[in-house]
């Protein structure tokens, strides 16, 4: 007898079909992983179970939870179920909590609402559950406000809210996607413990196959609103009967075929020399006249890069890696220290003096949606760096250069007249790369260039990076928190922790045998599909 059974669930928003004949079931105490790429309808499935889908959504089919027909239930009945029998955790911890209420109030609120407990009783229970999720009262008083907590801590509060009444079913919708790998591992462990302690069922939604494999007994794979495969996690993934399952699994572990750079660069001059740079930000204002100690985002960092090299800069979120990248790109000025690019110092130069350096140094950002002005055509966007050239190309030359860059990243000349919104995320990242290579730079700084992409697209973009590295001899500085990416595409790695570089070396070697504590934490927390499947198979014998 399953706790939750979804039969032939179809859902439309307006006239747009989101889900088509979904079947899904969860037994008491079971963990079901719901996997899919963006737009596959996994979040909408969760919201349909809670009856929290947008008002314009129309659902058909049947959802039965513990004997209750959810689609037929009144709002009053649903209110009794939500928070009491079904708890839910969302993706974004930074916005999931009400900023003007204390964490104590927010945890106790649901308890009071459902159990009619007194304020004191509810607070007592809130204290207990917060303690259980790793926020002991001595350090995290109930009177704290969300903004006083970090992202990981806020997600713990959200878990406390969802689990306060020991629901029969817990729904976790991408609960760790917004967190870095180390935090992710901690939150996943906490979820596992809570589920087994309270004998809860868990519907675990994620785009990350490795994470789901680690968590779920059974798995359901969604694609464009339909179920592709469902069954025992290890079996489904190792057998991979459906081509999409196979594609998903392969893409998750994809390593681009890399030809060694065509130039031997061991004797060459350094392309980039960063010596002892530090970037401080003014501390918080404590009163009108005094500030606390300045915050060191980057602390005495030195590094060098050879032409054509591919280097990963890896670290947890907030470790200063993006700040470092911006200083290398001369978009931010170091408080002290020097940066030399192709032998020329780029710190404290005017924009005009920087032109030759900028020509040879371009950037690819993380967000394929935010990195283009929505009001410009592709031609204008990709051509933007051309004005760095010594001699301005005329219109015809310009069009040819744009066309060539587009061709090199796998897009066509006819894309030139389009606007960015006409492209998908992966195509936009290609545009981003086209813009970066149009001036034939010697260095591309890529800030998390694939972390916003679905796995199958991610694999294609990584291939493109690898190919351009070989073809154009361009060097990469890859900023990432994702070790799979670092391993796939770089030769050397720098591990950054709290503003300092704590370990450096050959990528394979550092990631296989990390010596620093920070690197070890990153490596052990990183989800790995092969390891996860192997472990599951082993457990099952």
């Amino acid at each position: 007898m399953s706790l939750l059974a979804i039969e032939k669930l179809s859902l439309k928003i307006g006239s747009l079909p989101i889900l088509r004949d979904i079947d899904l079931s969860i037994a008491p105490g079971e963990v079901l992983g719901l996997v899919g790429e963006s737009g596959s309808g996994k979040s909408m499935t969760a919201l349909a179970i809670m009856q929290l889908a947008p008002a314009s959504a129309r659902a058909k089919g049947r959802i039965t939870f513990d004997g209750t027909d959810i689609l037929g239930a009144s709002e009053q009945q649903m209110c009794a179920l939500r928070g009491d029998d079904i708890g839910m955790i969302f993706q974004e911890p930074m916005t999931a909590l009400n900023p003007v209420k204390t964490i104590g109030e927010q945890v106790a609120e649901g308890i009071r609402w459902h159990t009619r407990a007194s304020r004191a009783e509810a607070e007592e229970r809130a204290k207990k559950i917060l303690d259980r999720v790793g926020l002991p009262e001595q350090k995290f008083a109930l009177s704290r406000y969300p903004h006083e907590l970090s992202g990981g801590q806020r997600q713990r509060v959200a878990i406390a809210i969802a689990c306060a009444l020991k629901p029969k079913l817990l729904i976790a919708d991408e609960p760790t996607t917004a967190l870095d790998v180390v935090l992710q591992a901690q939150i996943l462990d906490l979820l596992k413990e809570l589920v087994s302690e309270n004998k809860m069922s868990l519907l675990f939604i994620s785009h990350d196959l490795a994470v789901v494999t680690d968590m779920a007994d059974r798995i359901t794979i969604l694609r464009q609103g339909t179920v592709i495969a469902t069954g025992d996690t290890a079996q489904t993934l190792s057998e991979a009967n459906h081509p999409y399952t196979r594609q998903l699994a392969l893409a998750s572990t994809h390593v681009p075929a890399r030809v060694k750079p065509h130039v031997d660069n061991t004797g060459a001059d350094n392309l980039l020399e960063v010596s002892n740079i530090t970037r401080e930000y003014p501390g918080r204002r404590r009163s009108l006249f005094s500030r606390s100690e300045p915050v060191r985002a980057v602390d005495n960092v030195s590094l060098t890069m050879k032409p054509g090299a591919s280097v990963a800069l890896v670290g947890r979120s907030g470790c200063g890696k993006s700040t470092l990248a911006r200083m290398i790109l001369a978009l931010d000025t170091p408080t002290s220290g020097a940066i030399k690019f192709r032998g020329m110092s780029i710190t404290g130069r005017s924009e005009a003096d920087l032109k030759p350096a900028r020509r040879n140094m371009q950037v690819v950002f993380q967000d394929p949606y935010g990195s283009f002005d929505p009001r410009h055509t592709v031609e204008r966007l990709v051509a933007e760096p051309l004005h760095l050239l010594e001699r301005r190309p005329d219109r015809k030359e310009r069009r040819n250069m744009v066309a060539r860059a587009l061709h090199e990243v796998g897009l066509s000349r006819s894309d030139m007249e389009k606007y960015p919104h006409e492209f998908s995320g992966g195509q936009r990242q290609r545009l981003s790369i086209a813009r970066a290579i149009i001036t034939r730079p010697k260095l591309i700084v890529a800030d998390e260039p694939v972390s916003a992409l679905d796995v199958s697209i991610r694999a294609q973009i990584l291939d493109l990076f690898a190919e351009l590295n070989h073809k154009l001899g361009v060097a990469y500085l890859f900023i990432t928190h994702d070790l799979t990416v670092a391993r796939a595409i770089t030769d050397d790695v720098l591990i950054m922790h709290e503003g300092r570089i704590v370990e450096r070396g050959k990528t394979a070697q550092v990631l296989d045998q990390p010596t620093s504590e920070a690197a070890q934490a990153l490596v052990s927390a990183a989800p790995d599909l092969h390891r996860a499947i192997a472990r599951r198979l082993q457990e099952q014998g």
Partner: protein
Amino acid sequence: MSDAAPHREETFGDLVGRALANRSFVIGLFITLVVAGMALVSFFWTPFDVTRLIVADRMQPPSAAHWFGTDHFGRDVLSMIMLGARNSIAVALVAVVIGMGIGVPLGCWAAARGGWIDEALMRFNDVVFAFPALLSAIMITAVFGPSAVNAIIAIGIFNIPVFARVARAGALSIWPREYILAARAAGKNKTRITIEHILPNIANLLLVQGTIQFALGILAEAALSYVGLGTQPPMPSWGRMLFDAQTLMMVAPWLALFPGCAILLTVLGLNLLGDGISDIFDPRARRRI
């Protein structure tokens, strides 16, 4: 996590389609065009000549000859309202141009430079905002003499910080975007980025604020004329007409009704238009008043 359907944003065709489907926009545009048309027509033709006072026709209630009746000098109220529209629009429009022309560059500059320049501009804004606008307009026209030109200047000055604030807030929300970083990495300076990327992306905000300030300008001009500090007779103005009507309200209520309706409709039309524009460009953005 996205590689599904391309993000649908507006193409020009979509925009026109959405505009025509937007009730606020259509009604607002219609009213605004009618009022503007009335003002334009008044340059060539009005039903009656308002410079000629015909005592025999004084205080006539609305009739077939005088749709909106006549005033205590026998002037045709409809004709006066048409001329008043011209006057109201001119004052409010020029005041908006003054406010935009000075405020927008200031706001963009503050957002681009940041630091003490930004701080100084914001403090300057605080000072201007501390003067109740209408009170200060009264003071300015009182000091420099009541006239339409001084009314324009008085209203225009108070538009400056409004546009500066909107432009600055809009620009500040655009500056951290990655495409601005990309433009900077392409070596473009701040002026160029402001012109190429910031202004086009805050244009809709400015347009919406423009309609709001236009509407407020019409209200302010009416209020100033009502207390005798705006447009001076014999040029008809809606505010002045209401002042004249006040003492005659017992005997000739239409004198107060029609100019008031003219103001109400014009302001309503502009506000609806502004609402419509902001909905069309960004259905999610809630309008600030």
